[in-house]
């Protein structure tokens, strides 16, 4: 890729971040997912925890078990092993078809956002209901997906003034990404849709369903249909249809 990436950096006193890009890109996301996966396979006792962000792999390390230099060497050697940017996505990926109300009083920022993106309501909905987005990482709160990449017209900055609160299962967008919120939260992201899909629900046998590499597509519903789903939603599935991705 560029001369600067991949590169290693520090997070606090005990974290190493292996970064594959400083801007959001699908190949850097694939690289980060694959790199973390392969490091995990090596079962290093000095690595106590790992996770992915959009374009980086994070490792929490214990330098009492192994000196920092030796841990950094290990990462460097792994990085040199291959071109991580051409890595395949994880196996056993799934497609989530999630019912969603776009706009209305349930998602008040939709109209403003399509104006910013310069498209009509029907064009926007066509894009969200026909283009699959990839779950690039899970983070912020339990089971919450950051999905992308949307086309360039969705490269909208977050709001400078954080909105008071958007509800659980809200669909929000900014910087070419979509998020479905696990919990009600204040945010600078634009609230464009409302689903009934709970990213985390402890009533389910599997409280967290989405994994990096999975794909999301939306099915447009109206607010009456959303209330119907909500009336019978103890498992928090919100009417989702989950399909295996075969490739």
């Amino acid at each position, binding site marked *: 890729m560029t001369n600067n990436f991949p590169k290693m*950096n*520090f*997070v*606090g*006193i005990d*974290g190493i*971040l292996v*970064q594959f890009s*400083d*801007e*959001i890109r699908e190949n850097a996301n694939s690289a980060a997912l694959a790199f973390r996966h392969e490091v995990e396979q090596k079962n290093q006792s000095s690595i*106590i*925890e*790992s*996770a*992915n*962000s*959009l*374009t*980086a792999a*994070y490792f*929490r390390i214990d*330098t*009492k078990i192994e000196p920092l230099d030796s841990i950094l060497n290990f990462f460097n050697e792994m990085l040199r092993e291959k071109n991580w940017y051409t890595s395949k996505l994880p196996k056993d990926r799934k497609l989530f078809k999630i019912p969603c109300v776009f706009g209305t009083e349930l998602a008040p920022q939709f109209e403003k956002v399509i104006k910013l993106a310069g498209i009509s309501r029907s064009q926007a909905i066509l894009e969200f209901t026909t283009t699959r987005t990839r779950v690039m*990482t*899970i*983070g*912020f*709160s*339990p*089971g*919450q997906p*950051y999905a992308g990449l949307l086309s360039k017209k969705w*490269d909208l*900055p*977050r*709001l*400078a*003034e*954080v909105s008071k609160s958007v509800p659980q299962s809200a669909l929000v967008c900014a*910087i070419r990404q979509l998020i479905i919120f*696990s*919990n009600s939260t204040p945010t*600078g992201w634009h609230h464009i849709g409302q689903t009934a899909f709970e*990213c*985390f*629900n*402890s009533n389910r046998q599997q409280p*967290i369903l989405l994994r990096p590499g999975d794909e999301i597509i939306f099915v447009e519903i109206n607010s009456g249909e959303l209330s119907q789903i909500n009336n019978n939603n103890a498992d928090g599935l919100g009417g989702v249809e989950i399909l295996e991705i075969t490739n």
Partner: protein
Amino acid sequence: MLEVISISGFSSFQDMGRNGFRSQGISRSGAADYYALFEGAALLDQNPNSTALELIGNGGKFRVLQGCMVALTGAFMPASLDQKPLAWNSSHFLHDGSILELGAPQNGRYSYLHLRGGFKAPKIFNSSSAQPSAGIGNYTRPKDILEPSEKIPETLKCQTIEPVDRFESTNFRLVESFQTHLFTPKTIKKFVETEFSIDNQANRGGVKLTHTGSGFSTSNQLKIMSDMIIPGDIQMTGSGQPFVLLSDCQTMGGYPRIGCIIPPDLPAIAQLKTGRTIKFKFISRDEANRIASKDRKCLEIIKERCLEPIRDPQKMADLLNFNLIDGAVWAKN
């Protein structure tokens, strides 16, 4: 075993928190003041990861349903058993039917009630730390029955502990983190020269800081890609206002971080009350590691801080129960 009669709003069970679930978006959580967990564990001769009740705000009132041994640590609260004062930073026997009362914290925000054997609480993602805002566990509420997770039959002497010094801190140490370079050297210089106040917007997720003068921004701040955040990070929100992240902070965020407070300084900043003023200082990674390892060693030998309490006869309401006269007579013989 205790029954909650009243308790302040956001009090909850906490232990040392969660490890290994960050990849699913699960926060670390755990006691805001981990020194208090170590102190409670030393007083009750148990594991520091035993579940304790973290009290925030106005304390609480508890009915003792079954005699038990407890310890009180963290921010000092006026404490009493059946209206007779109890020493803070100490362990105590509570007898059946008595009422334990804890008042508002005086020198900090977070106070801890520990039970011998630890409180019984469901383990979610390997920890009993509650994070109700994320859908994990619940706040502790009136009428809750608080039981020990294991009953330990043998008795233990009541002790008192010299607490780890952390309630008067004014200087906090930072290391650079992967986004420090997004700030210009001039902004960083201004940051370490600025005196900040602890805002009243403070909870287990983080503490807002206020100061006079302009904010601390980076260029293109609203389009920075979300990435890992950890407790201790100081992030600059939209207007460039610093926010110190604590144990319930999310796993990822998009606000730029100027640096990360070293773990041994985190209990101190969590405990600071609204209006207290502080300053920051960057230290090298080597120095930070030396301080962290010294801190670990101090916690390994925390039991050395325990003493048997010296009881003041003036304050002993139960003085007549002690067989003081017999001893004197026996000595004469």
